[in-house]
C-alpha cells in the first residue's frame, strides 16, 4: 500500500513570531529574532556566544492543571502548537481519539530546565532534598515528554514516534509520520518538534567553537549563512507542528490542503559524528527526490540547513550544486531565528508552506557578500515574488544524520 500524504494544518512558535501572520510579517520585513543571550544562574556568564534566537513575547497557554502537571517548558511549546494545528485541521474529536491519528514529536533533551533541578538535588547530597524530586519530574523531562503530553492532552491513541536526533528531530518526525500514513499504518499523524531555552546546548556548541561570537553587540546581524563573515551558529528556541493526512480522506472531508509531502529520505554518514559529509548529504537529497519520483528541475526552492558554520555551509552548497545545479532558489531560514535545534526542521517546513501559499521567497538574512566557496548555487538575497510549486527542506544533525523532505504545492 502506498498512499499520498498531504499537510492540512501547520503552526509554529518561533523567535520571529507565533503563527502565520506574525511570521509572514517578519519574513517580509527582514526581522531577526536573535537577541542577547538571557542570563541564567548556571552557564550564561561563561559562554563566549552571547546571542540567542529568543521567543520573548507572551504566549497565552490555557492548559488545565491535569495536563500542566506533567509538562516542562518544552511541552508547553509542543502542546500549544499541537492544539493550534488540531483546531485548524477541523478534525472531529471522534477521529482524534480513534487510534487512526498518531503523534511523531520530539525534542533534543526533554526538558533541560527540569533536569537541571533534578541535578541540583543529586549534587546537594542532602537526604531531605531527594524527596523534593517531584513525582512528575521524570515525566516532564524524559526525552519523549513532548509526544506523550500531546497524546494525553488530546486523548490521541495511535502510535507514538519520539525522534530525538538533535537538529534532524522534527524533520524525522515529519518523515516518519509521512511513512506511517503512506504505508497505511495510520490515517493521520501530528508531527513536529520543540526545544526550550537552554544554555547547556549553547555551551556545547560554544566549546566546539561552532557558535557565533563576533556579533554579540549586534545580535540581529548573526547568524550569516553562506556569507563571508559568518562565524558560527546561534542557538534558538521554538516549536512547530504539522498535521499529515492521507490525501483522499482529506479531500473528501473538505480539508484545506497546504501541500503534499511528496518524498522523504534519511541516512547516516556512517562515520564522523560531527563533521559534515558531502557524500552523505548529497545522497540524502537524491534519495528524497527519488522517493518523490521527481526530477531536480521540478524543485523551485530549497530550504537549506545552513547553520552558518564555516565548513557546514560550504559542504551543503556543494551538495545542492551537485544535485540541483543553480536553478532553484536557496534560502537559509536560520538567518532569521538562529538554530532552533529539534524544532528547526518543522519550523522551516512551516515557513516554506507559508511562502508557498503566498507566492514569495524570503531571502537569507545577513547574506551581504556570498562566500565564493558557496557561490555556485542560486541564493535568495532579496525577496522574490514567484510561484513555488515544489520545495525541498534539508536538515543535518550531529551523529551524521541527514534528512531530506520534498513538498509539492498541488497534490
Amino acid at each position, binding site marked *: 500500500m502506498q498512499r499520498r500524504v498531504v499537510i492540512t494544518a501547520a503552526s509554529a512558535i518561533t523567535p520571529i513570531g507565533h503563527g502565520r501572520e506574525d511570521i509572514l510579517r517578519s519574513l517580509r520585513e527582514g526581522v531577526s529574532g536573535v537577541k542577547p543571550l538571557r542570563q541564567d544562574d548556571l552557564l550564561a556568564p561563561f559562554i563566549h556566544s552571547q546571542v540567542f534566537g529568543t521567543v520573548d513575547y507572551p504566549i497565552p497557554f490555557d492548559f488545565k*492543571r*491535569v495536563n500542566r*502537571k*506533567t509538562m516542562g517548558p518544552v511541552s508547553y511549546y509542543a502542546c500549544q502548537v499541537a492544539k493550534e494545528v488540531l483546531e485548524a485541521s477541523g478534525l472531529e474529536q471522534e477521529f482524534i481519539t480513534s487510534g487512526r491519528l498518531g503523534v511523531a514529536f520530539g525534542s533534543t533533551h526533554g526538558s533541560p530546565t527540569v533536569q537541571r533541578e533534578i541535578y541540583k538535588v543529586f549534587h546537594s547530597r542532602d537526604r*531531605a532534598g531527594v*524527596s*523534593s524530586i*517531584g*513525582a*512528575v519530574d521524570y*515525566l516532564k523531562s524524559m526525552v519523549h515528554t513532548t509526544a506523550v503530553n500531546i497524546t494525553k492532552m488530546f486523548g490521541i491513541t495511535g502510535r507514538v514516534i519520539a525522534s530525538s536526533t538533535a537538529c534532524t528531530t522534527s524533520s524525522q518526525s515529519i518523515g516518519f509520520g509521512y511513512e506511517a500514513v503512506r504505508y497505511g499504518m495510520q490515517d493521520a499523524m501530528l508531527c513536529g518538534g520543540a526545544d526550550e531555552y537552554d544554555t547547556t546546548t549553547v555551551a556545547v556548541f560554544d566549546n566546539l567553537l561552532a557558535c557565533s561570537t563576533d556579533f554579540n553587540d549586534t545580535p540581529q546581524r548573526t547568524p550569516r549563512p553562506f556569507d563571508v563573515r559568518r562565524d558560527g551558529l546561534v542557538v534558538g528556541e521554538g516549536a512547530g507542528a504539522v498535521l499529515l493526512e492521507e490525501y483522499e480522506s482529506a479531500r473528501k472531508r473538505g480539508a484545506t490542503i497546504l501541500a503534499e509531502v511528496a518524498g522523504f529520505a534519511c541516512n547516516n554518514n556512517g562515520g564522523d559524528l560531527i563533521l559534515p559529509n558531502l557524500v552523505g548529504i548529497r545522497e540524502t537529497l537524491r534519495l528524497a527526490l527519488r522517493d518523490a519520483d521527481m526530477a531536480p528541475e521540478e524543485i523551485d526552492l530549497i530550504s537549506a540547513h545552513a547553520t552558518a558554520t564555516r565548513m557546514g555551509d560550504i559542504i551543503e552548497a556543494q551538495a545542492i550544486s551537485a544535485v540541483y545545479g543553480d536553478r532553484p532558489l536557496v534560502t537559509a531560514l536560520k538567518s532569521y531565528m538562529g538554530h532552533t535545534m529539534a524544532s528547526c526542521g518543522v519550523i522551516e517546513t512551516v515557513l516554506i508552506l507559508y511562502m508557498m501559499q503566498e507566492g514569495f521567497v524570503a531571502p537569507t538574512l545577513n547574506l551581504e557578500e556570498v562566500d565564493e566557496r558557496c557561490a555556485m548555487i542560486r541564493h535568495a538575497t532579496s525577496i522574490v515574488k514567484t510561484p513555488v510549486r515544489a520545495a525541498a527542506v534539508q536538515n543535518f544533525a550531529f551523529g551524521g544524520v541527514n534528512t531530506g523532505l520534498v513538498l509539492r504545492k498541488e497534490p
Partner: protein
Amino acid sequence: MTREAIEAEIRRIFLQEFEIEDPAMDVDLREAYQFDSIDAIELLVEIERFLGSELTMEEKKRAMDIRTVRQICSYVEELVRARRPGESLPIGDLCKEGS
C-alpha cells in the same frame, strides 16, 4: 492539632497545589476530579511538608488505598498522633470514616 486544622490544611493543599476548590469529603477523588497516582505522590510530599518530617515507606504504602478527602484527613490525623503521641485531639474533632 485539631481535626478542623488538618481538614483546612488539606483543603488549602487541594486548592493551591491541585486547583480543586472545596472538594467534597466522601467522593472518589479520581472519579470526581481526575486525581491520579501522580497527584497522590505529590500529595504525600505536601503532607510531609505539613508535618515537617518524612513519611516512612510503610506510611506511604498505606496511603495508596485512600480514595476520599475524609480518608486523607484521617490518614494525616494518624500520622500526627504517631509523631506526637502525647497530643490528643478533642473528641468533637474526631470525625469517623463515613460519619
